[in-house]
């Protein structure tokens, strides 16, 4: 018989979450004050609105978790809030830098309101879905919903084209990017579909040169997803979205089957498809040229050329290692600094040190998702958690990689940071689902 041993006890999860949230509230107030003092030299009561609304929302969400998901991961909410509030600070700061005559100086306010909408929807989802396994009943419905959301922007009347990409839908005064929500629906579908097919995808097939080639009929779905993502590329003229969906599918099929074959074949298929598309579509070709040789004058002055990326490079160089301080740089020179290029604005004002902090946040967020996946014991939950984590990871890689010239620049939003309502709603729903997944973990007797 073993000696009595004390079990190490962690503070209750929700208390931990509250402490971390209070920390982020402080950081947020600090950042807002810094921005106001550096740009308008006074503390303006406007800051009170920017601070109080998100804080009240986050506290409300926290108490909802106490009631409805008391065992959920304590770090997801603070990390999500931190990224979102940092985004609001940068967007507000860019608003302040615009001339008084500019009509569009309320992007920051709108972002706060969208954050409210997003957190309310996320809260409702957390309330409504008691067990994520119930989502498995709806995998074909979510496939249909995902496909419908993808097609919506192509429809006449409601479809809207912004800088060449058909990604938006007009809803009266608002415009919405349905593709952002489609990624959640498709994650649920991929997870459910691969849960039922994984055996046959993983085991069947004959060996050629030591590699097990699956039978042709098992490659059908992959070919279908490949064609669908190429269709997104060609019809919606958006490389980032198409890369995101296909990448997500490859990640999940790899996780489900542990066969690198699918990843190789998938990558070869996607790259060859994209190369062929770039020959026929000036949009893709221009992005490739701007990536490979941005300082070339022909690319720099071309319409949709590398002007934006070059300005961002200058901005990042201006920021250097420690940045110019919030409100101290000139990030407004970069076009679309508050949405696609928000990391470049952060990089200029907070420097490499600040950018690494932001990347570390994303890394921790994805790591929590993978931890949840690892701790679950059934395939559907595992795949769903990995999928939701990788939606964020892939998107961060594609966007931030594009801004920093690691990969060609594509139009995707930076999760939780960039200005844009649809993206905020989608990412808060992802956080709500991850919270639900972490709450239903088989309990191991410890607090976590």
């Amino acid at each position, binding site marked *: *018989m*073993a*000696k*009595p*041993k*004390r*079990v*190490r*006890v*962690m503070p209750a999860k929700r208390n*931990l979450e509250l402490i*971390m949230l209070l*920390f*982020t509230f*402080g*950081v947020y107030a*600090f*950042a807002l004050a*810094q921005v106001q*003092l*550096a740009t308008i030299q006074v503390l303006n009561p406007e800051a009170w609105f920017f601070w109080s609304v998100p804080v009240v929302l986050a506290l409300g969400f926290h108490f909802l978790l106490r009631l409805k998901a008391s065992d959920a991961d*304590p*770090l997801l909410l*603070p*990390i999500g809030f*931190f990224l979102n509030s940092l985004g609001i600070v940068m967007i507000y700061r860019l608003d302040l830098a615009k001339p008084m005559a500019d009509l569009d100086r309320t992007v920051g306010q709108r972002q706060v309101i969208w954050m409210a909408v997003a957190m309310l929807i996320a809260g409702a989802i957390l309330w409504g879905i*008691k*067990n994520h*396994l*119930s989502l*498995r*009943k709806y995998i074909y419905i979510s496939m249909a919903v995902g496909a419908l959301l993808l097609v919506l922007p192509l429809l006449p009347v409601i479809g809207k084209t912004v800088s060449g990409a058909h990604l938006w839908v007009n809803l009266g005064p608002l415009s919405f990017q349905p593709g952002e929500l489609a990624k959640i629906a498709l994650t649920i579908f991929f997870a459910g579909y691969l849960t039922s097919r994984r055996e046959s995808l993983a085991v069947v097939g004959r060996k050629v040169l030591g590699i097990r080639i699956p039978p042709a009929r098992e490659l059908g779905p992959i070919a279908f997803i490949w064609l669908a993502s190429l269709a997104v590329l060609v019809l919606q003229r958006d490389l980032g979205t198409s890369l995101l969906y296909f990448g997500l599918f490859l990640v999940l099929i790899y996780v489900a089957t542990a066969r690198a074959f699918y990843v190789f074949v998938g990558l070869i298929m996607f790259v060859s498809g994209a190369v062929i598309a770039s020959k026929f579509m000036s949009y893709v070709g221009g992005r490739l040229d701007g990536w490979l040789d941005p300082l070339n004058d022909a690319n720099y002055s071309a319409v949709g050329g590398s002007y934006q990326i070059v300005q961002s490079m200058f901005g990042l160089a201006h920021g250097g290692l*420690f*940045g*110019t*301080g*919030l409100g*101290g740089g000139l990030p407004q020179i970069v076009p679309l600094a508050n949405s696609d290029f928000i990391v470049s604005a952060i990089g200029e004002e*907070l*420097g490499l*040190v*600040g950018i690494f*902090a932001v990347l*570390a*946040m994303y890394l*921790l967020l994805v*790591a929590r998702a993978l931890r949840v996946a690892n701790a679950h*014991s*059934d395939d559907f939950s595992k795949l769903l958690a990995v999928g939701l984590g990788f939606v964020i990871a892939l998107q961060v890689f594609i966007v931030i990689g594009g801004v920093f010239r690691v990969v060609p620049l594509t139009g995707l939003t930076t999760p939780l940071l960039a200005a844009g309502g649809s993206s905020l709603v989608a990412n808060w729903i992802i956080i709500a689902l991850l919270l639900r997944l972490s*709450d*239903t973990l*088989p*309990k*191991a*007797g*410890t*607090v*976590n």
Partner: protein
Amino acid sequence: MSELALFIVRAGFLLVLWLFILSIISIIRADLFSERVLSRVVEKNIPTAVSSPTTGLTNIADFSSAPESATVVSAMNSLPTKLVVIAGPLIGTDLVLDRREIRIGRAPNSDFVLDDDYVSSQHARIQKVDDGWLLQDLNSTNGTYVDGQRIGAPVSIKRDMQIRIGKTTFELRG
């Protein structure tokens, strides 16, 4: 603002950012660490013959609800060892809990096959966790009930709890 004050504010903000990240990492570390300590203690206590009946012992120690006094003495010895059918067509049947996972359902490859129209092919499963047995409903059509309540999230089951699946009611014994 003077240059020095500006510098302090700038540096201070970056410092705060990284303090936040480091505190998150320290939480994750503590989380991993506490889990490892616990599982090691429990493994040491796994008895060689799980199926040996150990009657007269109280319920297993519940670490999460009584953390101050929680000890792991004989935690595994007091675990139930059998799943007994107390009502339904298979009344009296029992299954020795000698594995980590028991699948219950209509499918012939389940560990406990229930030939009942109200049972889904993969209906529920019981898993061994560090401090006991965990019952999880596998999204069945007609649900799994513990003491009359339909369960959503996995629940930890103990002796004297009545688990109903379709027409069959189980109890943990031994």
